């Protein structure tokens, strides 16, 4: 599983970081990026799905594997 954050949609709600701190980084303005290339380490798939499902801006989605 691989995930991505659309920087044109993210508004810094930080819900993803709260739910899945291992998968996201926030900058000082609250904007989120995925850790590394967005590849979800084994065992964290549920956290990734929660982050996708709780983003108020629909900014996070599953993306194609590299």
């Amino acid at each position, binding site marked *: 599983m691989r995930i991505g954050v659309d920087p044109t949609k993210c*508004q*810094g709600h930080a819900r993803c*970081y709260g739910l899945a701190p291992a998968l996201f980084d926030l900058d*000082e*303005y609250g904007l989120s990026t995925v850790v590394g290339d967005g590849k979800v380490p084994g065992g964290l798939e549920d956290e990734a799905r*929660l982050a996708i499902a709780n983003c*108020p*801006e629909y900014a996070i989605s599953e993306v194609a594997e590299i």
Partner: protein
Amino acid sequence: MNRTPPVDNWATDFDVLDAGYVADPFPIWEQLRRGCPVAHTARRGSTWMPTRYDDVTAMAHDVDHFSSLEISVIPFDGTAPDRPLLPYGLPPISADPPLHTWTRRLLLPWFSHRRVDGYEAMTRELCAGLVDGFAGAGRADAAVDYAQQIPVRVIAHLLGVPSELSDNFTGWVRDILEFADDPERRQRGTQGILQFFLDQLDRRRSDPGEDLLSELLHTQVDGAPMEESLVLGTAALVLIAGVDTTWSAIGSSLWHLAAHPADRRRLVAEPDLMPLAVEELLRAYSPVTMARVVTQDVEFSGCPMKAGEKVLMNFPAANRDPEAFPDADTVVLDRAINRHVAFGSGIHRCAGSNLARMELRVALEEWLRRIPEFHLAEGEEVAWAGGQVRGPRVLPVEFL
């Protein structure tokens, strides 16, 4: 506190200051969502109010048609007392891009998740101390003795201003937000805050510190110091937006836990639920409704909106929309899918949301740690404030 004529038709003559609406808006939203999802009123100027999640979030994202130059839910009748000193209002909340963009970037780092982590210990100590004050008494006013005391002191700490003035801050902010339809109180609150910050800014010019006010004063914009009116407006915003709102969320959450013993006991037994529970309580009892002004004629969700009319983005109602949240009127502490917009949506997402969330979590943790069993005091009234910010202002509870 009934300051408004009665409402007969919520679709065509709504009033967010109606005493019945303030006390229990939920059935009214439900009725509007089904019958007339964008309500209208001519009270205090022509104003539209969407109550469905999709409409509210679409409006929040359409900053071309819906400007933040007017954000007060209650328009001010007469001469606005703050305009001579604050020509830009309280940026970034009262600004559109580009002013919104750069003033917001000044504020956001002060409320980043890392900075907020640094305020947690101080918040926890504050909450624990407040509980110490009444834990032995067997009863407390959870609004006045607890919720109301927390955010104002955290914000004072962040601004680097004396927390002994907390009662003054609270009074001024209530005058502005909760009594906005009373010109005398609104004037008093505005003058109080502006005079206070003018004095604080003067002190920091000669003796700068490490605080937000000092940083704003020394900010350069295009090679010149930031205009004083912008510094003043931004500083006042932090106080005004950071006090009533979070206090309301803490109070509403404690009201829910006092009135719903099964949820309270579950949260005590399963403390790991707290992060999800905080989001769910924010969803179910969102305090804040924000206004916008229509910039150009537009048809929105079938309604002909005219330039100059106001709209109220009813985030609290959006968060109770059953189309967006199954079983929306039930608090589900571990609700897994929860795209709530208690902090708004789009470019004006609450800049202090990380701080508010931390304060709510710590306030609930410290209360429940010491007072796991409590209930609404029998036969005593709970008093709610509403309009721009909804939450309990009198909340008598009893415990062993």
